[in-house]
């Protein structure tokens, strides 16, 4: 009672920290009972916490004792399991070293305990109140689609890809792909890729005809199993207009309507490389889903992308033209989504 009284006297301060490849984005929202009073955003050149960031956060958190620090989990050891049953969890992943949570009573997400301890230690100066999995952010963002659609859902952040496949709210597959390592090997990787693909970078425009995606597929072991699938074995047959029309029956017209407002970023060299990277990872994930016996393989037709970084139209085109998927891109503001989850967590 007294706590509630004190709580009503103060504003609530929500602090979101999103760690990117080489920087951290901090979003602060000050809320009262009536609603949002003000919000602030700043980016810091650190992936941990530096004095500047500490000063920025504490300048707002000291305004109220009711402040909540939230972090989006970037652990490489995170993932999802299509069950909440404790006895079946170990079939998919060794949960002894992981912290796991059940979502919607039918699927679980987990992360490394060591990484959680590391987060708490790393942010000991400001403390950590909530750590959210990108999977739950993605599931919450597409909750209107997950309940009634069979599709692949992808969260694209600067440092990672988060892929989950749902069939009418039943999780079939999920994978977290950290793209941070690409930074270290970016130059060598890109030079190799450019040579192979024979792309004229001077034009700054990409012609999909120049990209030999089949070569890449052959290089990937996981996708070898795709050869066994009838649908993909006769992939050239799908090029006919008649077959494409059959796909169009499963298209999400409503989503297409909203997608018209989406503005895609201009394609640049950097964007192209990143998007091609993402395309490769998505392709691998899908191949893994089809090939791994642990998962119930079903043919994916629709892909919903939650875009937090501003992908170019190229990625959409790759997925549509190379993998024959219906791709819908929605822009996601991770800060808003994290805030929503934080507020749900503290019952605001």
């Amino acid at each position, binding site marked *: 009672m007294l706590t509630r009284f004190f709580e009503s006297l103060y504003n609530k301060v929500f602090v979101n920290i999103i760690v990117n490849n080489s920087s951290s984005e901090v979003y602060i929202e000050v809320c009262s009972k009536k609603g949002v009073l003000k919000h602030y955003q700043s980016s810091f050149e650190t992936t941990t916490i530096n004095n500047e960031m500490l000063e920025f956060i504490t300048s707002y958190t000291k305004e109220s*004792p009711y402040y909540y620090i939230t972090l989006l989990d970037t652990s490489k050891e995170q993932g999802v399991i299509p069950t909440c049953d404790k006895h079946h969890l170990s079939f998919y992943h060794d949960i002894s070293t992981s912290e796991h949570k059940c979502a919607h009573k039918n699927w679980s997400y987990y992360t490394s305990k060591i990484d959680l301890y590391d987060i708490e230690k790393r942010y000991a100066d400001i403390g950590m109140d909530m750590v959210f999995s990108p999977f739950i952010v993605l599931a919450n963002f597409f909750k209107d689609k997950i309940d009634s659609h069979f599709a692949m859902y992808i969260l694209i952040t600067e440092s990672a890809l988060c892929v989950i496949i749902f069939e009418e709210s039943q999780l079939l597959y999920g994978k977290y792909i950290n793209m941070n390592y690409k930074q270290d090997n970016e130059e060598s990787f890109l030079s190799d890729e450019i040579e192979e693909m024979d792309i004229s970078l001077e034009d700054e425009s990409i012609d999909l005809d120049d990209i030999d995606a089949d070569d890449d597929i052959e290089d990937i072991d996981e996708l070898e199993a795709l050869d066994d699938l009838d649908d993909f074995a006769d992939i050239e047959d799908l090029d006919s207009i008649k077959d494409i029309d059959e796909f169009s029956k499963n298209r999400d017209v409503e989503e297409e309507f909203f997608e018209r407002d989406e503005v895609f970023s201009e394609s640049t060299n950097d964007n192209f490389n990143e998007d091609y990277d993402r395309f490769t990872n998505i392709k691998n994930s899908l191949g893994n889903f089809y090939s791994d016996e642990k998962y119930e393989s079903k043919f994916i037709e629709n892909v919903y992308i939650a875009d937090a970084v501003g992908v170019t139209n190229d990625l959409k085109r790759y997925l549509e033209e190379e993998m024959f998927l219906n791709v819908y891109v929605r822009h996601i503001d991770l800060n808003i989504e994290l805030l929503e989850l934080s507020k749900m967590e503290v019952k605001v």
Partner: protein
Amino acid sequence: MKYSYIAPRKKSALTQEMQLMLSFFSITILMLFFTYTFLLYKNYFFTNDKEFISIQKSKIESELSKIKADITLINQQKVTSEKIFTQNMVLKDSITNLFDLVPDRITLSEAKLLKNGLILYGVTPNKDIYNFMLEAPLHSIFHRTYSSFYPAKNGWLRFVSTNYIDEDKDRDVRDE
């Protein structure tokens, strides 16, 4: 804890600043309370003292008035004693004078001093000696003198001389 891997830390309005402020206020209130209690005690103490002093004062005042009365009484006693002393001195002088008046040949056996008179009992060889040597001076002192004689065994005369001073006459003489 719904979706977060970790539970939010418990938030309390009692931040370090708030705790410092509360401690400060608590200490201030405690100091005020102690000061108030001290003043209350002192006030009670002073009230008691005041009552005690006022009782003492009234007691002393009553003692003082008693002492004053005593002083008055003592003064009166002193005046009286002085008066008695003077009277005694006068009486002593009078007696000395009286015995000086009595000639050697007359022997007094008793003398009674009255308020306004003197009765002498004695033996005289004869009336003449008495009349000339004792009655004459007595006459000069007292307004009325009465003498009576009766014979003694040895042939002498016993006498009783009664002498009075009339106060009215004495007053008149003083007035004059």
